[in-house]
């Protein structure tokens, strides 16, 4: 149906021009005069539309003029600046290079181009002349499904929702695919221990993978996943994290074997982080800085067990579950000290900053460990040496080993948003201090505005025994998860808050896993992704995930994973 933007009225010039009530001496003249009068009306209508049209054109042209003026000014400034450039002088000293501010585009992309606010006046008049939709929303109170009755009649957001869902699904799929590929390479967090190497290489992708996997798992077996991850900690850190020791852990251990190529070392890391996310996010964050040390120890242990590189290779090729189990026992010792050390050590803050899911891995590894000689009595430098050797064994390990320090440095900067989230989490954690057994969260920075709990923190029933209750009862845990989610969403943080509050309330009410999952999805959509730009940016970030985007995505993914797992 053609939809004229401007309608010149009256359309029928001659009709109804003959007055019926009073007789005319000459009807033909009457009709002619009436027709001429209508023509004058048409002309006035035409002039009005023309004025409106020219007004629009003038406005647009004025905008272009302003833009071109500012652009000209920028070009002039740039020209002056370029002439002042001196090739003999070093542009940026090596010292100052760190002070350089990263380029940040100030370009604002148009959004909601076809919204009611941008509707041209001519069309707005036509729109206003339309009948309002029947007040079907008044029947909402009689609906059991809680849907808006009016949306069955008309839903302006329908196509946007459709597009958004499609884009989000695409993004998820891409991330999932990438995760699979990576999983083949280095192994996944959940299934494979190889994550450590991968995460060092590309943080972003790994987290995404884990998160997606966790999501899927949570959907299929919401509760199973959690237990699998937990077992590792169990043995190593019985004392420090009593809550981790839950009924679900044992089943997890059984499930381990099926996991394909898993590097023992990485396995432990990946699992640990996941556990941490779901269970003890605070402790994990604190311990993030210590992760590297932990890895080193693991490597060291592996070397002891497997007689150097050969053993490690075998592990990489396809770690057998039994092996991993053996190695794990060796790892456990560090855990207990971690609790003590974390509070004192400054590393915890680092770990928070890093915020990547991988980093969060093992809360247990104590900061002092790196300095302190490993159990075997080997000095730390020995460990490092071992690590250096490891690269030969497998590509993935190489990255992990070589990069540890570098990674930390990288991790810290890339995820700026995360730190805040973590901070919030810390604060919250601090409030419920010792439930988790991570007593020493450093004093949290001022808590950011109440993070909304979109993610129904209240982990679904499947969650570890003690944790569920805690999560439900204690707000702090919930908040961390939410924070992570927000981080995942990234830019949209501001909007989601309102929803988060609501989600928190709802989440506390809803205990079923399914509902939680649904909510997560909804929250996800609601939180940040009402924004076209954010959706597209996220998609682009996923497709071209580099270190930076990866870091963000990691954090996000972790958060989601937690949510899902918890749910």
């Amino acid at each position, binding site marked *: 149906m053609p939809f004229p933007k401007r309608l010149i009225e009256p359309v029928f010039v*001659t009709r109804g021009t003959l007055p019926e009530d009073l007789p005319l001496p000459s009807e033909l003249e009457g009709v002619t005069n009436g027709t001429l009068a209508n023509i004058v009306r048409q002309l006035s209508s035409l002039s009005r539309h023309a004025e409106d049209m020219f007004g629009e054109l003038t406005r647009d042209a004025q905008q272009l003029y302003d833009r071109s003026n500012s652009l000209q000014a920028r070009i002039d400034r740039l020209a002056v600046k370029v002439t002042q450039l001196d090739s003999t002088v070093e542009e940026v000293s090596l010292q100052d290079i760190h002070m350089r501010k990263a380029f940040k585009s100030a370009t604002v992309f148009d959004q909601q181009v076809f919204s009611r606010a941008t509707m041209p006046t001519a069309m707005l008049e036509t729109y206003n002349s339309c009948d309002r939709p029947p007040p079907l929303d008044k029947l909402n109170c009689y609906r059991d499904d809680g849907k808006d009755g009016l949306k069955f009649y008309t839903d302006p957001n329908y196509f946007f929702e459709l597009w958004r869902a499609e884009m989000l699904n695409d993004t998820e799929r891409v991330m999932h695919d990438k995760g699979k590929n990576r999983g083949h390479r280095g192994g996944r967090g959940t299934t494979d221990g190889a994550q450590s190497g991968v995460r060092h290489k590309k943080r972003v992708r790994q987290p995404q993978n884990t998160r997606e996997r966790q999501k899927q798992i949570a959907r299929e077996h919401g509760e199973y996943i959690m237990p699998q991850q937990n077992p590792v900690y169990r043995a190593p850190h019985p004392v420090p994290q009593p809550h981790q020791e839950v009924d679900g852990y044992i089943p997890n251990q059984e499930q381990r074997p099926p996991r394909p190529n898993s590097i023992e070392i990485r396995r432990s890391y990946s699992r640990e982080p996941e556990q941490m996310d779901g269970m003890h996010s605070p402790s994990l964050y604190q311990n993030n800085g210590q992760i590297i040390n932990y890895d080193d120890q693991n490597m060291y242990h592996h070397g002891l067990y497997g007689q150097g590189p050969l053993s490690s290779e075998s592990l990489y090729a396809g770690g057998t579950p039994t092996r991993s189990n053996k190695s794990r026992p060796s790892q456990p010792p560090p855990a207990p000290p971690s609790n003590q050390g974390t509070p004192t050590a400054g590393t915890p803050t680092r770990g928070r900053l890093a915020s990547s899911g991988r980093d969060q891995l093992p809360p247990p590894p104590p900061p002092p460990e790196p300095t302190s000689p490993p159990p075997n009595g080997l000095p730390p430098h020995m460990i490092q040496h071992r690590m250096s050797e490891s690269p030969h064994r497998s590509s993935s390990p190489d990255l992990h080993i070589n990069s540890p320090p570098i990674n930390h440095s990288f991790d810290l900067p890339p995820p700026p948003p995360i730190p805040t989230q973590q901070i919030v989490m810390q604060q919250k954690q601090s409030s419920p201090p010792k439930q988790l057994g991570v007593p020493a969260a450093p004093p949290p920075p001022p808590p950011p505005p109440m993070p909304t709990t979109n993610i129904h923190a209240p982990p679904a029933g499947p969650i570890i025994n003690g944790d569920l209750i805690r999560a439900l009862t204690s707000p702090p845990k919930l908040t961390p998860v939410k924070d992570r989610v927000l981080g995942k969403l990234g830019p949209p943080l501001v909007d989601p808050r309102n929803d988060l509050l609501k989600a928190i309330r709802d989440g506390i009410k809803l205990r079923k896993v399914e509902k939680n999952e649904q909510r997560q999805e909804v929250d996800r959509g609601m939180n940040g992704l009402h924004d076209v730009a954010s959706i597209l940016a996220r998609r682009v970030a996923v497709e071209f995930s580099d270190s930076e985007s990866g870091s963000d995505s990691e954090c996000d993914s972790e958060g989601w994973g937690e949510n899902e797992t918890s749910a």
Partner: protein
Amino acid sequence: MAAPSARGETIQKQIQQDWINREYIEIITISIKKITDFLNSFDLSCRSKLAVLNEKLTTLERKIDYLEACVTKGETLT
């Protein structure tokens, strides 16, 4: 016969005059249509040209963004 003939003439005159008026009205309406056509085409061409201009401006702005970022030294911080 004169009366009826005279009446017939007046009617004929009226009809002729009406035809003249209709022609006049036709000319006016056609002119109005021409005006609207012109306005529509003018609006269309203006908008397309403005859009092209807008596009060029956007690319230019991005290029300038890039150049400014290239030229900018570490002065941004500190």
